[in-house]
């Protein structure tokens, strides 16, 4: 019995292995493959076109955004500093504060306009237009004064006389 074992093993093994992949597919495999090809060949193209369209739209939107950002007027440095200032919360007045977004919008609106001239500035402009020589002399005088050292006269403080005061009160 032992001598027959290797042959028996080989025989069993060969027979079993021969059947390992000898499985038949369900009838009509070829037809199902062809049907799927007919149904499936159109779908990917459509999907590809749809993705292409979506990518094109995304690219267009990106370009538009860039163009808008590029053409936006740049704020002046002074205005930029002004725009960065955030309103600090004031104790006791919190309810009166506007929401942050509103404050930012308000700041931007103010920044975009040129600041109106003060009455002094307007008077100076009028003086320059009317009498340029006089204005020039005034400016030079102002500049000279601002650079000159300030001279203060000595102040003399006399000591208080306590005896006299006492006598007066008596």
């Amino acid at each position, binding site marked *: 019995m032992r001598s027959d*074992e*290797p042959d*028996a*093993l*080989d025989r*069993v*093994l060969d*027979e*079993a*292995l*021969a*059947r*390992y*992949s*000898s*499985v*038949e*597919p*369900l009838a009509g*495999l*070829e037809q*199902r*493959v*062809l049907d*799927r*090809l007919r149904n*499936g*060949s159109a779908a*990917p193209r459509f999907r590809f076109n749809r993705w292409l369209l979506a990518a094109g739209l995304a690219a267009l939107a990106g370009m538009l955004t860039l163009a808008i950002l590029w053409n936006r007027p740049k704020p002046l440095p002074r205005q930029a500093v002004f725009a960065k200032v955030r309103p600090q919360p004031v104790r006791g007045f919190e309810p009166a504060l506007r929401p942050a977004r509103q404050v930012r919008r308000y700041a931007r609106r103010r920044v975009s306009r040129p600041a109106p001239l003060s009455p002094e500035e307007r008077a100076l402009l009028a003086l320059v237009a009317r009498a340029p020589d006089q204005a020039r002399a005034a400016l030079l005088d102002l500049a000279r004064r601002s650079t000159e050292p300030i001279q203060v006269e000595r102040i003399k403080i006399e000591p208080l006389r306590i005896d006299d005061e006492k006598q007066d009160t008596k």
Partner: protein
Amino acid sequence: MTARQETAGRDERFAGLVERQSRFLFRVAYALLRNAHDAEDAVQETFLKLYRSASWETIENERAFLARVVWRIALDKLRKVRDVPLAGDPALPTIANPEEAAVTANWNAAVHRLVDALPPELRQPLALSTVEGMNSREIAQTIGIAEGTVRTRLMRARRILKQKLAGLMEGRYEKR
């Protein structure tokens, strides 16, 4: 020849390819997946991929080429369903009592289970060797390893199977 005629001719040639190779590809996929439904899916996916690539008309060895494609697709499928436990070594639990011993009289099923329990590097070439008409060279091309390696692995796999089968026949794994 018009474009429509060209397309019709092309489709006809492709249908011929499907007719010629579908069953062979099914067996290759089945050897790895061990599931008819999954194997058919792999075959359909192979032809769909091939049809879209439009490179099938210039294939020299269509059988080897298609076997390689379906093998890769089947491997991908296998990776996805890896969580599903494979049939383990059947020798230990299946011969627990006389009834189960009677079941193992079906040696084919027992050997198939033993093959399934082999490590992948041995199981894969052995499974392909069971596909009708596949020799060592074709197996090597399909898996992407050297032909000599295929032969070595086949011998090792066969030796292991014989040892386990001998154990089964002698009732070595019987519970006492």
